[in-house]
């Protein structure tokens, strides 16, 4: 059984394997491509793009915590125009599957971004970031408001035929209700999870270690929370899930598939081991071989609760 099928389909989106690189942890592909063959990756998700460039937050933007890190980058990005002009050409060359992550401060801005970007053949899907904890406008204000998520999803759905992923915030009581709302308004999948809101203080200066005061917690520390959220969605809503949160190795990725994810995204691990994606794809292949799984999608939601 050497022909293991690692491919997965999400809406119209065909992925050669279920290992994606998460938004905000690969930039626009350029720098990380020195360490990893992006053409072999399921897909890469761009850093959140907004209509206009954003400078992002002043330093300090990151701080390490126990098995995790806090970040408050503030959606620093080059803006739509520069993205199209300067970043897309490189991404086209790479022959990688490209998912564009969009962050906006109004529904109109989401729609406008999607309209413009939809014209670009190379962009195969959109991931709508309604859940960034680190900006005042947009971000969590949307992410924690189910009506906002509904409205954004339905408007954005009208603006594109491409595959649509809604990236959910874990900072809510019932994430499945948001997944359900996304599904009902026409999303093809949900990405779960974005970072958890966290903080750290310097006991000498009494200042927050992160200039933005709070930041988003990512990394292995949040893996159990992310798994529970994926599982919660899978049990309650019939929509494909892209699992994210603390995935660092093959075992972690498999855990997410078992818990209900159709694919996974790697975030923080890219900073530490930028080739992790390839290693995990290899690892998944081996796991399937050893466990007689001929099609990786059979792992999705394969938990045994007996």
């Amino acid at each position, binding site marked *: 059984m050497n022909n293991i099928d690692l491919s997965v389909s999400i809406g119209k989106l065909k992925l050669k394997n279920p290992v994606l690189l998460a938004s*905000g*942890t*690969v*930039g626009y592909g*350029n*720098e*990380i491509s*020195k*360490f990893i063959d992006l053409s072999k990756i399921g897909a890469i998700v761009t*850093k959140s793009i907004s209509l206009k*460039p954003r*400078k*992002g*937050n*002043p*330093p*300090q*933007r*990151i*701080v*390490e915590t*126990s*098995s*995790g*890190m806090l*970040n408050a*980058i503030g959606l*620093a990005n080059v803006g739509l125009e520069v993205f199209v002009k300067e970043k897309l050409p490189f991404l086209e060359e790479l022959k990688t599957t490209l998912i564009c992550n969009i962050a906006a401060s109004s529904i109109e801005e989401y729609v406008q971004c999607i309209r413009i970007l939809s014209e670009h053949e190379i962009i195969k899907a959109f991931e709508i970031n309604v859940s960034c904890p680190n900006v005042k406008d947009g971000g969590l204000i949307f992410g924690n408001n189910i009506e906002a998520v509904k409205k954004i999803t339905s408007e954005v759905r009208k603006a594109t035929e491409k595959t649509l992923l809604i990236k959910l915030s874990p900072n809510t009581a019932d994430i499945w209700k948001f997944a359900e709302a996304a599904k009902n308004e026409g999303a093809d999948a949900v990405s779960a999870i974005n970072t958890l809101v966290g903080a750290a203080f310097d006991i000498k200066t009494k200042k927050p270690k992160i200039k933005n005061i709070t930041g988003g917690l990512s*990394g*292995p520390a949040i893996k159990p929370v992310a798994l529970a959220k994926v599982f919660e969605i899978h049990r309650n809503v019939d929509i494909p899930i892209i699992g994210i949160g603390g995935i*660092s190795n093959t075992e972690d990725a498999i855990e997410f598939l078992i818990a209900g994810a159709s694919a996974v995204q790697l975030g*923080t691990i*890219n*900073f*530490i*081991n*930028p*080739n992790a994606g390839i290693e995990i794809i290899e690892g998944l292949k081996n796991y399937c071989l050893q466990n007689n799984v001929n099609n990786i999608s059979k792992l999705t939601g394969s938990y045994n609760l007996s």
Partner: protein
Amino acid sequence: MIIENSKVISNIEIANNIFLLTVRSPQIASHGKAGQFCNIKVSNSNYPLLRRPFSICDINNDEVSFLFNIVGEGTKILSGKKENDVINILGPLGNGFLLNDDFDLAVFVAGGLGIAPFPLLQKELKNKKQIERFFGARTAAEIITLDFEESHWATDDGSLGRRGTVLDLLDSEINNFTNYKLKIFGCGPTPMLKALQKYSEEKKIKCEISVESAMACGFGICQGCPVEKNDKSGFYLICKDGPVFNSSDVIL
């Protein structure tokens, strides 16, 4: 820019809590330039999670060395590395110092551990430019001489060299070099770099500084290491656009 599993050649405590770590890293050694840094995984576990950045201190054939002091858990773990231990190193990262611009006397200015990039810089400048070295430390016990014999020293408490900051020291000597086209190379704690920025601007001396910040990736994908551009139009990324900057380009 590669990832290399590097064997420890030696890890010597050359002053109190200050270590000189030498590893065998042929690829990093063959590409590394003065002012660049490496991002080092100090453990194989999630603790600490992130790599730790350290300037390349020196390169000898296929050996690379780093100078560091113990400030937290990561550097503590690193200080425990022994001969033949293997360390996972990502590098070389960032842009080194610019050496081919118009100057004939390189002025090294370092505070404390800021001395780290200068052994390699000195090597690269050898036979090309003249060099004067100004090093400061809090006290004699914290002075790291490395292989810099002929240098100017300052200590805050006057226990070695001139009493005062390295900037005071520099200022007291600068008039001896009026015949040269100077370029200052600065590295050290942020307050010292700020003073140096101001000083070089006032004296209209060309100046490059090596800037630090917390980092996650070290190669431009996390955007965690901003430093404000001089025109306030946005931020450079220290790891990718630096760590060496033209002193007048950034707001510290």
